[in-house]
Structure formats: C-alpha cells, structure tokens
C-alpha cells in the first residue's frame, strides 16, 4: 500500500467566540468547527467530503491549506506533520496543496488582469522569471478551455463558470499534487456545473492529481469520487468507497442524505426526502452522538456515549461512527 499523500489525524479546529462585554469573567464560548477528524488521501485518489452547510467542511479545507491553526491533532503531508516542518518544507507543501474556492466572484482580485491572477502563485513562490510565467499563463489558460485573449481581460468581464476556470488555472500553475476544491460548483448555474465538473475530472486525470472535493450535493460527487466521507457537525460520521456509500450507506445520516437525492421517475421517492429538524449550533453540540436528536434510530446509549469510526461488519473498507450502523 502506497504511503498516503495527506493524512489527517484527530484534527480539531476551534474558534474562540468574543466575549459579550469586556467586563465578563471566565472563558468565552468556543465554536467547535472541526472535532477529531481523521482520514487520509492517497496519491491520485479523489476523496469527496459531503455534509450540510455549516458542518465544518470549509473550515476543514482551510485548516488543510494552512489558513487556520489546529487546536489539536495533526496534518501530515507525505508523512511529516505540517507544524513540525522546516520553513522550506512548509513552503513546498504550500505549492503542493492548492485550493479552489467556492465563490468565483470573490476569489479573484478585481484589480488584476487574468494573466496576473493566474501567475500570482508563481510569483509568490518565486517560480520562473517573467518570460516563463507568461508562457505558463498561456499554457494554463488553454488547459482550462479559455481563449488566449482572456489573459488581458479583467475578472468582472467573465461569467461565473469562466471565473471558476480561471481559478482552476491558477491552482494548476504551481504543479500541485493535491487540489482542495471547496464547493466549486455551488455558486454556478446548473447547466455550467457539469462542464466544470468534467473539466476538473479531465485535468485530474491528465495531471494525476489527488483531489479533495467538498460538496453538499451527493449527486454531484458521484461522478468524480473514489471514496466519500460524510461530515456532520464537525465530525466524520462515515467514510467509504463510493459504491458502498451509495448502495449501502451505513450511518443513518448518510442514508438520509442518499434518500434526499431527487431521482427521476421513481414515483413516491422522486422528490427526495429531507431530514427532519435543524442543524444544531456548533457552539453547543448535543451530548454523545451529535446526530441523535434527528436520528430515527436514536436510543439512550446514543445520548450518553459518542460512537467512534469503526469498520462495518461485512464491509471492512467502510467506516461509520454509529452504535447501530448497518
């Protein structure tokens, strides 16, 4: 088994909430965005991370690329903990792990022409001189299917889908090994989504990239993923190979998500079933299993004891955190 490219172990990310007044005593409340998350991504593998809005997916992605410090746990790149790295090694990982953001209208600086947007990572990392960067920009814009004259234009002159292509081109520039895509399609029109999805798939294959694809939409993920991780309230509740998750979801939450996918022409289930209740506040997560207030299978043990990720009885590659996993 090849060594994983990236490994998360017990990753926990907290945000301290500001106190309501400067004269209050004691610690303020803490927002537990990510709690004890562990998984790994192999070279060339595509791992999808799904969950409702507010479950901590974006925080996880940003912690992975170094924007948020972990409160506990480790992020390992090729075996070395990011925090234990030398400055040089750290710089190298910043090249190797690239991110595509959700909002194509916000992730590009409106004052920079597209050529500068795309080559900015190269400038920051000191890769190549002017001429090389210009050449690379031409290469990249072609790779994402935009014409060469796009390089001289400004982001506001492009549509959402095109801007996302520009963002992809930017991420490809430093020849990364892992791309973290944080809901790259959510802000796009449905008709454009499949184009961008296909583009990402093709580029991934061409450049043999690992991909962490984050989405709230299981239907979209089905196309690209090798494995799928399901996240709820900052915790991974299930992680399994794609086929197993879609055919035999183990955790009740995963099952509910699958059921919620609208299917064409299947009568009563065609509109999909939504999950009852609301997502609890991450400032005050439920005791025991975080899902128990909304779970159809909840029992007293679920309130008292938090389940851990463990392999499902007959399918050892599938892990779920549930006392009553199937």
């Amino acid at each position: 088994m090849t060594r994983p490219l990236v490994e998360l172990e017990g990753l926990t990310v907290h945000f301290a909430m500001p106190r309501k007044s400067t004269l209050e005593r004691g610690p303020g409340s803490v927002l537990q965005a990510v709690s004890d998350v562990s998984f790994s991504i192999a070279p060339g593998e595509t791992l999808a991370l799904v969950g409702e809005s507010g479950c901590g997916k974006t925080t996880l992605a940003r912690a992975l690329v170094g924007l948020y410090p972990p409160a506990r746990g480790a992020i390992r790149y090729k075996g070395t903990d990011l925090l234990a790295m030398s400055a040089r090694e750290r710089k190298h990982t910043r090249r190797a792990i690239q991110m595509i953001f959700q909002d194509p209208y916000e992730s590009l600086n409106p004052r920079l022409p597209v050529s500068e947007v795309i080559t900015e990572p190269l400038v920051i990392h000191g890769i190549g001189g002017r001429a090389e960067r210009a050449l690379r920009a031409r290469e990249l814009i072609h790779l994402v299917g935009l014409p060469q004259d796009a390089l001289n234009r400004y982001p506001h002159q492009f549509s959402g889908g095109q801007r996302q292509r520009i963002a992809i081109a930017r991420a490809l520039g430093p020849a990364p090994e892992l791309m973290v895509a944080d809901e790259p399609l959510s802000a796009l029109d449905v008709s454009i989504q499949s184009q961008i999805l296909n583009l990402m798939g093709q580029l991934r294959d061409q450049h043999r990239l690992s991909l962490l694809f984050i989405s709230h939409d299981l239907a979209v993920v089905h196309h690209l993923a090798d494995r799928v991780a399901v996240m709820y309230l900052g915790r991974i509740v299930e992680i399994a190979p794609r086929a197993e998750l879609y055919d035999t979801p183990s955790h009740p939450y995963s099952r509910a998500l699958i059921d919620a996918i609208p299917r064409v022409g299947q009568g009563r289930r065609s509109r999909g079933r939504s999950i009852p209740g609301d997502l609890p506040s991450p400032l005050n997560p439920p005791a025991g299993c975080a899902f128990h207030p909304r779970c159809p299978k909840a029992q007293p043990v679920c309130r008292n004891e938090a389940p851990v990720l463990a392999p499902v009885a007959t399918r050892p590659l599938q892990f779920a955190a549930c006392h009553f996993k199937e």
Partner: protein
Amino acid sequence: MNDLSSATPAAEIAERPESVWQLRWQRLRQNRAALAGALVLAILVLFVLAAPLYEWAYGLDVNDTDLLNRFRPPSARHLLGTDDAGRDVMARLMYGGRISLLVGLFGALSAALIGTLIGLVAGYYRGRVEAILMRLTDGMISLPLLPLLIVFAAIDLQKLGFSEEFVRSPAANLYRIVLIIALVQWTTVARLVRASTLGLMRREFVLAARTQGAGALHILRVHVLPNATSPIIVALSLSVGEIILLESTLSFLGLGIQPPTASWGNMLNNAQELISRAPELAFYPGFLIFTTVIAVNFLGDGLQDAFDPRGDSAH
C-alpha cells in the same frame, strides 16, 4: 485530445463596456459644482505659476521693499498697488499662493501617507498592534486641533538638536509646517484605510494569496492597497481645503510661514491694523483663500459622490 474548448467560451465572455473608473469619471462630469471647482482651481494654479512671468513683464522683484511708496493704489506699474512695505501686492499674492497651495497639497499627501501606513499595519496585523495604533488614533482625534498645532509650531527646534542656521532657514520653515499639519491630519485616513483593510483581508482573493504563503508586503501591495484607493483619494481631496485653512490660520497668527516668504495667511498678519488704512490689502489674500478652499471643497464633494460605493455597479 483536448476537447475542453467545447464550452465555446469566446462567445460567452460578457463584455462589460465600462470599467469602474470610467463610471466614476462620468458621474463626476455630471456634477456641475465639482466641474466649476476644478476650473477655478485650474485658473488659480495658472495664476500662481505665472508669478515669474508677471515679475518679468513689469520689471519687478517680489521682495523689493520701497518704504517711500507704501500703500500706493493700483497703478500701471503695480497692478494692485503696494503693501505696507512698498512691495508689489500682485506679485506677493502670486508667490504667496504658491506656498499656500504647496502646503495644502503636500500636507494632504503627507497626512495620507502616514494615515495609510498606520491603517494598513493596523488592519493587517490585528491584535495588539491594531489596538495600540487605534488607541493612538482615537487619542489624536480627541485633541483640540488648533491649540495642539500652536504648541507644535511654537516648539524650539534647537532644543531638539537642530542647528540655529537650519532652524531659521525658509526651507526648514516650510517642512515644519507641512510636517506638523500632517501629524494632526493623518487620523481620518488612518481610520478609513484600517476599515478598508479589515474588510479586504477577509475576502477570498486575499485568502487565496495567504494559502500560497504570501507575506505582508505582497498582500498589502498587490491586493489591499489597489482596492483601497478610493477612500484614500476622497479623504485626501477633502483634507486639502482644511489644510489650506489651517496653514493660513497659523501664518496669520505668526506661527506658520515666516516673513519675508509670503503666504496668503501671513499677508494678513497685521490685517487688523490694515483694516482702517487699506482694507483691500486684507481683502485680497482672504478672498483668494476662500475661493481656493471652496473650489477644493466642491471638487472633493463631487469626488466623494462619484466614488460612492453604493453607486458602483455590483460585479
């Protein structure tokens, strides 16, 4: 091999006909008061630049005193007559205008520079640094402006270690005025720039740069500053008028530009005495100050309207 171009992007690129700057320029052009202000300013600048020309045409030197010819009315030789030391009034107005306009411009630029630096640092580094800088800014804002300027102006530079010769030179005088005005005027720009920086640091294109490990200099230079120029420009233009007023007040009180260098303010130095003898001599410089400041204010007001972010079309 590569069928990525199946998206036909060439047809899709929505060509926005105007950039943000063009929109602003259009809005500014529609503001007649602002245009009038700009025109008046242009005339004034030409006026003060024409000083050497005027001297040459009339065979004068602005510094020539002639105590036998004091307070002469306008004549063919002296277009506006002579002042209390026999000097040509018109020439003094022209040269004085240079000083007043220079102080206004450079004072505003220096204040903007200081304020921008402080605002950028406070907004970028946050935490303790920001708290200290903002307390400093708030502290300065809460001080009475003119009394503080008077104290600054009254300081004996020799006590700080400067040589007597330097202290008395007109160049030092000018730098000092510009500096002390900048020292009290930077607070507005600092607040604006800090607010802009705070907002910009949270935007995703800045986050994208930070994931690459970009340092403070890169982020501030490439991302923050270019997107923060509009509030800076507006604050700058609005402060020019205020600075011209401050300089003229200081010079009037005898604490600003020192004679024999002329400035519109110090030409009014002994104005209260002149009132009875030759009131026009008090009127001309004051009127020019008023005209300049009101023109600058109309222009600055127009800029503010043109740069109003609510007017900018959303992306």
